[in-house]
Each structure stands twice: as C-alpha cells, then as structure tokens.
C-alpha cells in the first residue's frame, strides 16, 4: 500500500513516499545531521533531509516515523508525525 509522510520545513509542508524506500543512510557531515532517502539502486531520485548541527535527533526519528507510517495499524495513507521547525527533532533543509 502506498503511504506518504508529512514534514514541515521552514514552515512549508511537504510530503514524501515512505512505502517504496529502498534504503536510508544516516550521516553527520560538515556540521549537518542528515538522513538520505533512496528510492532506487542508482540513488535517483532521492533526497537528503538535513538538520543543522551534528547532535540532531532527526535521523533516528525519521526512520522510526517511516516505519510507523508503514505499520498495518496505521490505516491512513498519509502519516503526519510531530516533526516541526523550531523543536527537536526538526528538518532545516532538503537537498
């Protein structure tokens, strides 16, 4: 079943598909905490959810939220976790 997850970046809403993710990869690079979402073996089209700072909580939270959105106990196809700007964990940027 196709599932989407809602996120908020600088006040703007976005949604991404959580049902056909091939893999996620956490990284802490140049002062940024990020989790990369990969949808195919060639990594495209994927994107990176970034949280400024290297001590961020977002990667673990995002992975947990992806699992939760795909849970059979979650019947809606659009999952809305508590992930908001200005609180922890948060998303500051998407590349």
């Amino acid at each position, binding site marked *: 079943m*196709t599932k989407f997850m809602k996120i908020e970046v600088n006040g703007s809403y976005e949604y991404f598909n959580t049902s056909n993710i091939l893999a996620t990869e956490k990284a802490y690079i140049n002062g940024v905490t990020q989790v990369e979402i990969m*949808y195919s073996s060639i990594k495209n*089209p994927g994107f990176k959810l970034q949280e400024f700072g290297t001590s961020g909580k977002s990667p673990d939270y995002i992975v947990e939220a992806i699992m939760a959105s795909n849970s059979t106990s979650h019947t809606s196809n*659009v999952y809305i976790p508590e992930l908001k700007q200005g609180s922890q964990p948060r998303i500051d940027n998407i590349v």
Partner: protein
Amino acid sequence: MAGYIDFKPKKQIATGTVTSTSSSQLIAAGSAFISQGVEVGDVVFNISSPEFFPITNVVSETVLDVDGSSFTSSNAFSILKLSETESFPVQIDSITRVQVSNIQGETMVSLTLRIDTAVNARALIVLKNSLATVSERNAIIDQFMADINETLISSYNPSARVVSSLPLSNEYMFGHVTTV
C-alpha cells in the same frame, strides 16, 4: 493495486518555440495558430519561464498579440484553451516527493517521480494564481494530499480519481512532465 490520480488541467491545443522577439507579441515561425484553433481568450504558458499571458489577437499563423509579453528566443511555450480540460493522470505509487512552490509569480505543485533510469522525472502541475503566503500554499498541498489519500483508500474503478480544483478558487491550469 496502483492507483492513479487524474488531474484536469486546461486543454493544450498548441506548442512551440519562440523564434524571435517583439514587444507584446509571440512569434514562432513554423507554427499554425489559426489552423490549430487558437482564439482570443486562450492563454500562452511560457514553459521555459513559467508564466501565463492572455492572447489578445491572433495576427497570423505564426504571430500572436499577448498581454504582457515577456518571451525570449528559444523559450518553449504551450497554448491553453481555458474552456476545455484534458486528462493528466499520474501513478500515485511513482510519486516520491510532493512540494508546492512559487516560481516567476506562479504557484505550482511539484511531484518528483520514481523511475528506473539515470534521469529524474518531475510532474509539474501549475496553478494560475500566485499564492504568496506559506499558509495558503500549505492549504493547497494538504488538499492535494487529501485527494491522493482518498484515492488510495477508496475502491475507485479503475482505481483512478479525477480532481480538478483546489482551495482558494484555484484550478489545475497546466500539467507537464520534465526531467531534472
């Protein structure tokens, strides 16, 4: 089961490329505007620099007078008939990311699509109105996703749902797929 959401943007009746520039005119050698049924009241969408321009006069097969022309040579354009719509179906399972943004004064919903090639694809669904505030754009994307959710949880046959309007009196004006 793969569900489809079928947007209903305005009907595209002609496409082309700008070949030379003139104030308040669209000039495209090789076009056949009259033969293709272009009329006053239709609109030109500048694909290269997303913006709509109402057509004020059909001068010839290759020249249109437009209101507020801002074309440069090699701009790709599409002409839309506002009184008619056409299908623009998108397979929901292929959508990886949904965004809404303002580009050149137009608001558009951007759907990144998962395809198994080295080239990324994106479906852009353009709204005519520019939504200046974040809350307006958030209302649009929430309704957009509510339609997708409704499609996925309902037993539509053949698993496709037609949508044509959005909050704040917005319509789907133009849809096209591009590579990114």
